[in-house]
């Protein structure tokens, strides 16, 4: 196939989609201009193919085909279904902010304002002609076609601001619910954590029964202030024929802590790409990502960590359990700026292959310009250990139970990284759902 032709073809198809959607997208004036620039930027490559280095193992043109038409705003029936899906979540005590088919649903949310935490719907701020910063909400510090596409189409999201010194005891939770088949939702949320503030943020992705072959395009922009502490837990359980393309752009201040955990069991095609800049000295970053995939699922976990200031510590772990023909991608990049001395950055990928046809691609990258640093990466790939399996079976565990126990042990360490007991249980619950549906 001719590449240039494919590019224009996709661009042209989407041009129509963008033109059709434009009337529905919130914002006027500078917002419209920013959207158009973002769309033009996207159109340069269209959906990235394997020829785009950062997307080498996740060829979206091949895996997605095209971008689905923009989902319509949810009607009462959709909201009622979404309400049930939210009620079914066993997330303990959280303050929920619910996005249904890409639109903030205040009625389904359980957020109580005050105590130094404010929440706005992105759509409202984009549409507010008196806001001087509204167009900036769509800008990214990262140049990536899918981030650009998200900026062009973003319909809604939440803007959360936590004031300095606030210890937010109850976790904040953004719940994405999809109710419609064959459409795409584009959401964008921005979270600013003030200095010395302490916050736990949960992101949950689910769908109702009716939702099939849908696409979720999400971006989360986070700022973690100096001496702040952000505990982030993301659980993605979208339908197995859905696509989920999500990005996080995180800026971490000085002496701050950012601990992020993500579990992916859903999505036929998924990518979670996280761009984290350690922009202040002596901060600590810990990322733990888990893929539990089967069937034909393709999951991509990409972390780009930028050590821009001295004395920061970063620990990245990735664990994948892959069955059937599932395919996992882990790309981990650690960049250390020249001034970022005493950087300590390590990443580790471990994959457990339950089938001969399962596949993992690891792409570690170190880019180091400082001389006094400790950086490293490692990767292991293996099957379940036969001698351990026999020991368990000799003690009475049937085959699947013995395997489950060893799989749980394999992902257990990553789950342990979740500090909040309730949220750890949420992640364990999602992992158990995956194990429970193994055949």
């Amino acid at each position, binding site marked *: 196939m001719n590449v240039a032709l494919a590019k224009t073809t996709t661009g042209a198809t989407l041009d129509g989609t963008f033109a059709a959607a434009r009337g529905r997208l919130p914002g006027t004036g500078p917002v419209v201009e920013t959207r158009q620039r973002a769309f033009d930027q996207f159109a340069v490559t269209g959906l990235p193919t394997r020829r785009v280095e950062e997307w080498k193992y996740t060829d979206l043109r091949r895996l997605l085909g095209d971008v689905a038409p923009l989902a319509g705003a949810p009607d009462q029936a959709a909201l009622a279904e979404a309400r049930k899906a939210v009620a079914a979540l066993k997330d303990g005590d959280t303050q929920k902010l619910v996005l249904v088919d890409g639109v903030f649903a205040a009625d389904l949310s359980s957020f109580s304002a005050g105590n130094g935490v404010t929440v706005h719907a992105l759509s409202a701020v984009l549409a507010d002609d008196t806001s001087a910063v509204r167009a900036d909400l769509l800008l990214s510090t990262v140049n990536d076609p899918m981030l650009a596409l998200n900026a062009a189409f973003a319909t809604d999201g939440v803007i959360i601001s936590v004031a300095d010194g606030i210890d937010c005891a109850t976790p904040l939770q953004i719940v994405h619910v999809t109710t419609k088949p064959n459409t795409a939702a584009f959401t964008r949320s921005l979270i600013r954590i003030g200095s010395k503030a302490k916050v736990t943020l949960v992101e949950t992705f689910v769908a109702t029964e009716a939702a099939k072959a849908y696409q979720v395009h999400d971006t989360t922009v986070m700022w973690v202030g100096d001496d702040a502490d952000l505990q982030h837990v993301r659980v993605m359980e979208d339908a197995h024929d859905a696509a989920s393309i999500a990005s996080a752009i995180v800026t971490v201040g000085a002496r701050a802590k950012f601990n992020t955990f993500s579990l992916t069991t859903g999505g036929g095609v998924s990518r979670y790409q996280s761009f984290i800049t350690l922009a202040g000295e002596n901060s600590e970053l810990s990322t733990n990502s888990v893929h539990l995939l089967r069937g034909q699922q393709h999951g991509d976990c990409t972390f780009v960590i930028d050590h821009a200031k001295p004395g920061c510590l970063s620990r990245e772990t990735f664990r994948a359990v892959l069955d059937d023909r599932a395919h996992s991608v882990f790309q981990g990049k650690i960049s250390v700026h020249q001034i970022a001395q005493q950087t300590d950055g390590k990443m580790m990928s471990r994959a457990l292959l339950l089938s001969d046809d399962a596949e993992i691609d690891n792409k570690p990258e170190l880019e180091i310009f400082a001389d006094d640093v400790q950086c490293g990466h490692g990767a292991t790939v293996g099957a379940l*250990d*036969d*001698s*351990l399996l*026999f*020991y*368990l*079976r*000799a*003690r*009475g*565990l*049937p*085959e699947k*139970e*013995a395997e489950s*126990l*060893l799989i*749980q*042990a*394999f992902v*257990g*360490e990553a789950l342990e990284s979740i500090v909040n007991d309730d949220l750890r249980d949420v992640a364990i619950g999602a992992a158990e759902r995956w194990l429970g549906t193994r055949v």
Partner: protein
Amino acid sequence: MPALLEVKNLQVRVEEREILHGLTLTVNAGEVHAIMGPNGSGKSTLSHVIAGKPGYEVTGGEILFKGEDLLEMEADERAAKGVFLAFQYPVEIPGVATMTFLRTALNAQRKARGESEFSTPDFLKKVREVAASLNIPQDMLRRGVNVGFSGGEKKRNEVLQMALFQPSLCILDEMDSGLDIDALRIASEGVNALRSSERAMVVITHYQRLLNYIVPDHVHVMSKGRVVKTGGKELALELEASGYAQYEDVAA
């Protein structure tokens, strides 16, 4: 009533090589049998085949357990029926807490037998009792299965499981290897406490020493994949004095 365990003319191959060449052994409930023999004579192979470890090809003979064909069952079915192998080298399972493992295993066995699962308090009480009798500290139960355990602790953990599962056939493979005298005494006391008229033990060992602690009713000498001599407990002492060399020729 059939014998508890009947191994008849068992022939076993591993990777195209015959290891057991027609082994016969009958064990009745209430009896303790010792199987002695030099390294490489096939003792562990026999224990693995009885427990149902994959990778062994049975080319002849049969194994009956309470009259049932054991070779037709998966390892976990055998465990639920009452077959227990205390491993020569118990494996370490990082990430699986000993307590979780014990409860999962016990309840899996009970479920397979159509019995109700143990309630958590009953289970904990039972484990604590047994652990205390074997000098197993509580914190060991919270750690990963055998992770960071000394050789002696691993063997005691095997005895703990035996006491918990109450199997009718216990096969102890080289329980004495790597144990000092104190550890050996504690583990042996644990085993002796389980001797009963409903239960049989097959104690596999290279050395006579263990049999001072666990006194057998019958002793079998194995060499090159066969039982070459059977006698009473005095046979073990004889072997201690004269060594295995005399049996090498018999088997050849």
